[in-house]
C-alpha cells in the first residue's frame, strides 16, 4: 500500500516560510517542538544528513568524531542550512556539545545558536532543571522574535504535538496491521523530523483510517540504534525476508513521547521528554533498556534485535556488550552493525543481516 503524498523537507520549509514562519535547524535528539512552534518557528531536524561532502567539517573536526556531527557541520558550511533562522543544539553527547561550542565560538554562522542541556536522569531535580532550561529557551526565542506567546498558546501547541505523538504511537501499535513496507513505514515516521504537527496529524490519520491491513511478512525484528541510514537498509531487510516490527532508534522509537500531566507548560514539556522510552543519552540504566526491549519483543513477537549504530557513538557503544548479553540470556539474540553516514550500504552489512536472519530461522 502506498503512502499519501508527503511534502519533502525543502517543500515544507519553503511553504512554512512563505506564511511568515521561521525555521530552526535542530540537532539530535530531544528538544521541545511545541516551544518552537509557539513562536511560529518550525523545527527541522538535522541527522547528518547522509552522503554529505565532509571536507568542510574536516576543517574543524578530527576524524574520530562521528559522521552525524561531521556531516552536520559540513552541511552547514556549504549552505545546507541557509534557510534556517536558528540552530538548536541539544547537548546529547560530547560530540554534539563540542559541535555547539565551536559553532558559538569559531564557526559563528549567521543563525543564532541555542544550546540546550538535557539532564541525565529522571529525578525531581532533573524535572526542575529541564523546566527552567525550557523557560530560558523561551526567553531567548522571545528576545529574537519579539514574540511572547501566552501560557494558553504554549499549552495549545503542546497539545497539538501530543496529538501528533499519540498518532505516531498508534502507527507503531498498528504497525503490524499497517501494510506498509519497512521503507514506507519509516519514511512516514521520520516525517516527524520536519513536518508541522498539523500536517503530520492529517497524514497519519489518513493512513490509520485505512482498512483491510495485512500482517507484515517475514521474520519479525527490532531495529535499535541512532538512525536507519542509508534508508535502503530497510528495503534490504524486506528483501531478506524480515519485517521491522518495532524500533529503539534515537530518531524514531526513543521519541515516542507520552502526553504530559502538568498544566504548567514548561514543566509539561519537560515531563514529556524525561518520561520518553529509555535512552542512553538521557542516562537510563542498562536494566531499563533491557526491560524495554524485551517488552517490545514480547508485544510484537520480535525474534531478534539489529543494533545499527553510527561509528564512534559512545553512548551506544558502551551499552552494547552487556545489553546484548542480557538480551541473549533472556532468549532475544542480536547482531551489531556499525555504519558511517557517508558509506553506501555495503555487501558486508547485507551479508551480516542476512546471516543473522538465517539464525533466527
Amino acid at each position, binding site marked *: 500500500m502506498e503512502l499519501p503524498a508527503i511534502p519533502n523537507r525543502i517543500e515544507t520549509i519553503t511553504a512554512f516560510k512563505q506564511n511568515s514562519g521561521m525555521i530552526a535547524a535542530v540537532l539530535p535528539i530531544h528538544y521541545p517542538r511545541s516551544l518552537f512552534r509557539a513562536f511560529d518557528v518550525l523545527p527541522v531536524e538535522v541527522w547528518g544528513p547522509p552522503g554529505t561532502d565532509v571536507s568542510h567539517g574536516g*576543517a*574543524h*573536526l*578530527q576524524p*574520530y*568524531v562521528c559522521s552525524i556531527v561531521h556531516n552536520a557541520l559540513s552541511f552547514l558550511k556549504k549552505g545546507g542550512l541557509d534557510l534556517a533562522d536558528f540552530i538548536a543544539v541539544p*547537548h546529547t*553527547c*560530547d*560530540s554534539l*556539545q*563540542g*559541535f*555547539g*561550542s*565551536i559553532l*558559538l*565560538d*569559531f*564557526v559563528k554562522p549567521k543563525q543564532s545558536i541555542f*544550546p540546550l*542541556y538535557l*539532564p*541525565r*536522569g529522571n*529525578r525531581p*531535580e*532533573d524535572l*526542575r*532543571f529541564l523546566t*527552567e*532550561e525550557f523557560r*530560558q529557551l523561551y526567553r531567548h526565542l522571545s528576545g529574537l522574535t519579539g514574540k511572547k506567546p501566552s501560557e494558553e498558546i504554549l499549552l495549545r501547541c503542546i497539545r497539538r504535538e501530543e496529538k501528533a505523538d499519540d498518532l505516531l504511537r498508534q502507527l507503531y501499535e498498528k504497525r503490524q496491521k499497517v501494510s506498509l513496507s519497512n521503507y514506507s513505514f519509516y519514511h512516514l515516521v521520520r516525517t516527524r523530523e520536519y513536518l508541522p504537527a498539523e500536517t503530520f496529524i492529517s497524514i497519519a490519520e489518513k493512513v490509520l483510517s485505512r482498512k483491510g491491513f495485512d500482517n507484515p511478512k517475514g521474520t519479525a525484528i527490532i531495529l535499535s540504534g541512532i538512525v536507519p541510514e542509508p534508508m535502503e537498509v530497510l528495503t534490504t531487510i524486506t528483501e531478506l525476508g524480515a519485517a521491522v516490527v518495532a524500533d529503539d532508534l534515537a530518531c524514531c522509537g526513543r521519541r515516542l513521547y507520552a502526553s504530559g500531566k502538568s498544566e504548567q507548560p514548561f514543566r509539561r514539556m519537560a515531563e514529556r521528554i524525561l518520561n520518553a522510552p529509555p535512552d*542512553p*543519552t538521557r*542516562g537510563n*540504566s*542498562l*536494566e531499563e533498556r533491557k526491560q524495554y526491549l524485551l517488552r517490545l519483543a514480547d508485544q510484537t513477537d520480535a525474534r531478534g534485535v539489529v543494533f545499527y549504530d553510527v*561509528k*564512534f557513538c*559512545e*553512548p551506544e*557503544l*558502551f*551499552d*552494547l*556488550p*552487556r545489553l*546484548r*548479553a542480557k538480551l541473549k540470556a533472556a532468549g532475544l539474540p542480536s547482531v*551489531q552493525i556499525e555504519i558511517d553516514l557517508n558509506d553506501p550500504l555495503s555487501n558486508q552489512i547485507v551479508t551480516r543481516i542476512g546471516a543473522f536472519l538465517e539464525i533466527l530461522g
Partner: protein
Amino acid sequence: MSVSATLKYMVNVNIIGKTALGWQRRRAEHSTFSSSKWRTDILSEPLRIGARTKELISLHYLAGRYANGHRPVAWVTSGGPVEILQALGYYVLYPENHGALCGARRAVVDISTEAENAGYSRDICSYARTDIGSVLSGKTPVGKLPKPDLLLACTNICQTVLHWYRVLADHFNVPLILIDTPFVYDEAPDHAIKFVRRQLEDSIPVSEQVAGKTLEYKKLQEVLQLSKDATELWLEIMGRGKQHPAPLSVFDQFIHMAPIVEMRGLKTTVDFYSQLLKELDERISKGIGALKKERKRLLWDNLPIWYRLRYLSEYLAERGIAVVASTYTNAWGELAPLINVDKPLDSMARTYLYPILNKGTKYKLNTMRRMVEDFDLNGVILHSDRSCKPYSIGQVDQRNRLIKEYNIPALLLEADHDDPRAYAEEQVASRLAAFMEMLED
C-alpha cells in the same frame, strides 16, 4: 564492616605497608641520579619528592587492596566532588588514575584487550576500556583493586563517564550517584548551579546509608579546607613554571599530580605539596631548571600521552625545549578560589561546574593565550586525544587561531592518552621535528 578485615587492614597497611614503603622511600631519597632511567645529560636531577610520590601512590593502592570490609569504598570520576565521601571515611578510587598508571606502566593493551574481547569497541575511551578490562579480568599493575560499594560519576569532565559508570553500576550492582553538571558555554545560569547543589544534597543520604554513618558538617568543612589548601598549593607549584629556567616540567607535573586528583581532602596531600613547593623554591634559588639547558618553552594542551612521557620529555629536552605549563594540570588548580568552607555545598556546586572541560572551546583558547603570556612561552602542543572528545573537539580551530590571530606557533599531535595502538612514533617524530623548525624561525 568486619573485624577480620579491619585487622588485616591494620597489619598489612598501617604496620607492614607503611614501614616497608617508608623504608623504600628513604632508600630512594639517598640513591644517586645514576640509578634513574631518564637521561642525565639533558635533564636535571629528578625532584627528590619523587620517592615520596611513589610512596604515597603505593600506599594508596595498598590501602585499597585491603579496604573492602574495613572501610566503605567509592569509585569516583576524576572531576567528582569527593569531599562528602572523604568526610564519611570512604576509601576513594579513581579508575581514571588507575588507567593512567596502567598507561605509564604500559599495561593498557593487555588489560584493554580483555574489554575488547568482551565486546567493547576500541572507539570508546581507553581509560574506560582499561578499567572495564581490569574489572573483567582482575588484571592490574597494583595487585588488586577494591570492589566499590558506591559509584559516583560527575559529568563535568565528559559524558563518557556517565556511560562508563552505568556499565560499572550494572556489573557491581551498587548505587550510582550521578552529579550532572550542565555544560557552561559562557556563565552558568542560576538554575544550573541550583541543580548541581540539589544533587550534592541528595547524594548525602545515599552516601551515608552506604557508609553506615552520618555526615558531620564540621568534618565536611575540614575536608573542604584541606581540599582548598592542596589545590592552592598545586596552583602555586604550577606557577613556579613561570621562572626561567622552569624548575619543573609538565612531565614532572603529570607524575606528581596523582595526589591532587585522588587524594584531595587529606592532610597528607597538603603536606606533600608543601614539601614539593619548598623543593621547587630551593631549585629556583639555585637556578636549577628541569632541563639542563632551556632554550624554548612550550604549553601542553590535553591529557598526557602516558606511555610515552619519557620519550617526549627527552626528545624535547635534547633540543632544549622545556614544556613548562599545561591546561590539563592547570585544571586541578584553577578552581581553588571558588572553594569556600563557610558555604560548602554552594561553593562545591560552583567549583564542580567550572572545570575547563565543562566550559566552551573559546574559554580554552583564552586560557591557552593567557598561559602563553603568563609563562612566557614560545608555542603550544595540542595533543589531539582520540579518547577524549570533549578536550579535543575545538582544537583544530584553537590551533588555527593561535597561529593566525596571535602568531603563536602551535602543533596538533594525534595520539591517545592511554592506548599506544593509536600512536605512531615516526609520525609524531616528524611532526615534532617540523614544529621545532617553526620554533626556530
